[in-house]
């Protein structure tokens, strides 16, 4: 019975303004933008390392995208377009402000205590640290390919690099993560699967 969080009409209060006519169907640009927001936020958190900054970034991206929507061709890849805007915005803000130190126990770690997944919290916290230790270009590459669901071609376009470059970044990121986590890859949960069972406290239930 979870309420739909994507619903545009389910506002807690009645609208203040009386419209002269029935509101038109929302344009599909808005609808598609909404559908992409959860993934866009997750990408923003992975870039900025912090929830509040990520949401500022998403807000800037939404405003920019809205202002530029006439330059977007409906039917083409809105998700990739939005990710490109967000990524450009992030790096342009970083250049302006200078690199700030990322919170090593970022929000991912925080969330894990309230939202345990199939993995133990310790296990994912270690993984998050390893991910944070990657160079920026490798981290964003492996996230775009491994989690956001983009093809190499799309990810290369988002990061403004060649497809071969994207492939090599993902490959290097995977190799480094495997080395840091001491796993060998496919279906290898290594000793972590055992230690996670031992170290994860069962206070979630």
């Amino acid at each position, binding site marked *: 019975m979870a309420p739909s*969080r*994507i619903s*545009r009409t389910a*506002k807690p209060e009645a609208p203040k*303004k009386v419209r002269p006519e029935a509101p*038109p169907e*929302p*344009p599909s640009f*808005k609808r598609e*933008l*909404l559908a992409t*927001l*959860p*993934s866009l*936020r*997750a*990408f923003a*958190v*992975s870039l900025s390392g912090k*929830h509040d900054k*990520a*949401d500022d970034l*998403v*807000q800037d991206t*939404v*405003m920019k995208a*809205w202002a530029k929507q006439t330059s977007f061709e409906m039917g083409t890849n809105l998700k990739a377009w939005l990710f490109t805007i967000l990524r450009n915005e992030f790096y342009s803000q970083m250049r302006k402000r200078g690199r700030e130190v990322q919170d090593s126990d970022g929000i*991912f770690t925080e*969330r*894990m205590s309230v*939202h345990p*997944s*199939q*993995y133990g919290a310790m*296990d*994912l916290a270690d*993984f*998050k640290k390893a*991910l944070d230790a990657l160079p920026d270009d490798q981290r964003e590459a*492996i*996230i775009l*390919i*491994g*989690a*956001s669901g983009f*093809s190499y071609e799309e990810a290369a376009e988002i990061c403004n690099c060649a497809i071969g470059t994207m*492939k090599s970044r*993902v*490959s290097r990121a*995977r190799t480094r*993560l*495997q080395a840091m*986590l001491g*796993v060998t*890859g*496919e*279906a*290898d*949960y*290594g000793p972590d699967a055992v230690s996670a069972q031992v170290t994860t406290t069962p206070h979630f239930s």
Partner: protein
Amino acid sequence: MNQMTPARPRRSEDGLGPNSDIGAKLRALYGQVQDEGIPDKFLDLLEKLAEAEEKTDGAKQN
């Protein structure tokens, strides 16, 4: 029966497919944020942007 189902071709080369520990953890982390849904402030923002656009469009027509 067949536990060694091969990963889909597109993913098999990058080692981030369904059988990959790293791929699964990446998606678990990402999914934690993604599953939060859309904060109200973004719904409100889009509502306002759409309203502003309607007003502008209306002004243009008159």
